[in-house]
């Protein structure tokens, strides 16, 4: 493990393919892969394009904006690090890829516009979460 700028050890999960994602997260940038041949955006990363099968994929910074595709309010106690109730959502980025995330600073509904925020974690890169557009902060 090497110390990287921002004080984070990398790769954060010992995963060489996702290392750039977590390095960008340390800079609070949400990046995904874009195919240099067909323009398809994809997340999580692969060494090739899922759409056209080319191997010309490159990391690009997203707008960090998207919409809530689905959402659930969790009322169960599943682990000490999660205090119910909290929101887990699938957010669809404007670039296309969907990701599982938390909605912070709700309330929020399916279809609402959201924007990436970053949740700090001990010893780990910040985690991308989302907050409703227009929410304070």
């Amino acid at each position, binding site marked *: 493990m090497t110390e990287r700028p921002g004080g984070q050890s990398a790769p954060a999960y010992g995963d060489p393919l996702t290392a750039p994602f977590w390095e960008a997260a340390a800079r609070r940038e949400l990046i995904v892969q874009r195919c240099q041949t067909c323009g398809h955006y994809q997340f999580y990363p692969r060494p090739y394009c899922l759409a056209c099968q080319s191997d010309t994929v490159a990391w690009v910074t997203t707008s960090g904006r998207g919409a809530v595709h689905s959402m659930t309010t969790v009322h169960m106690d599943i682990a000490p690090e999660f205090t119910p109730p*909290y929101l887990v959502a699938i957010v669809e980025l404007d670039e296309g890829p969907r990701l599982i995330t938390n909605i912070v600073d709700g309330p929020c509904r399916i279809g609402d516009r959201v924007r990436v925020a970053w949740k700090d974690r001990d010893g780990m890169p910040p985690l991308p979460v989302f907050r409703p557009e227009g929410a304070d902060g």
Partner: protein
Amino acid sequence: MNPSKTPVYVVGVAETPLGEVRDQTELSMVALAAREALAEAGMTLKDVDGIFVNYMGEEGSVQVGEYLGIQPRYGDSSDLGGAAFEAFVHHAMLAIAAGRCDVALVAFASRQRTRRLRRRTLAGQEMSLTEQFQAPYGLPIPIGNYALAAARHMYQYGTTSAQLAEIAVAARLWAQMNPKAWVREPLTVQDVLASRLLCDPLHRLDCCLITDGGGAVILTNAARARDAAKKPIRVLGAGESHTHWHMAHMPDLTVSPGAVSGREAFTMAGIEPADVDVFEPYDAFTITVLLALEDLGFCKKGEGGAFVETGALRPGGSLPSLTSGGGLSYNHPGALGILLLVEAVRQLRWEAGDRQVPDARVAVAHGNGGFFSVGATVVLARD
């Protein structure tokens, strides 16, 4: 393959001990069920030359084979979640038709209840994509995934919690006629809606039971089916598919892989959904059933809520479903698919007692695995 030229039959079915099982192990439970199912087939373990198991032993069929004293010609421990067993019927059908095995044992047992094996998260798998991109967000496993699908279905089609609750009520009405059902108390839509909200919009009573249990199913060719002590039930068609592992990658949150597995199975069988007398859908959650009804074509996409509201699934309904009481009220040992096959066969043999669907000739068992990840469908018929 053409199933009319190389017919394959289910010739034995059995449940393992159900509920809370403290005097058996998973392997001994499988042995009990296998021997009981083989007795129906007029066979013994010595006849089995194909083993199809999931979530069993170390190296799946390898340890099960050793335990049962079988050195098979065909072994399959494909991990297709709770849908594995309908997929195993598909695989066994092809293997038997191709002559690669003659007598297939499909089996499963779990003591998830007494051993308290349920996990609520997928955390702890170092380096995995799940660990990186899903576990940190606290999505409860598996219910959170199903809640995301249910919420989207409601948003897109106006499906209501009361419509989902009707599925649990229908299951309970059937369970009340099944002496082996784990819960048999009366249940109303209001009861479901008043039960604790776990992951919005799913309540506690939208969720299946957590019990011990399992079962065994024996398949064979037409020649060997003549030895059966009970009426052989024909496998008319089967199909399977899977679409995703992470919920963010489900291509459409309102369409399960049952859309493909159902079409494959119905096409092979040469029947339509309207020909089905009994439907045994995997009911891990009420929403699991709703998507299955739509995806297999029993109603149009988005109309599952209105369809169940007619009472279609209930005893006497237009599509008797969940006739054992299902995972919601009868038994759910973590992988329900095996028990859907057992109940479908018993309905087609006309031996389901008080809950017998009159004159049942065609039944469909539809398995679901993972998080709407896997669909596997089997069409069974009384000749």
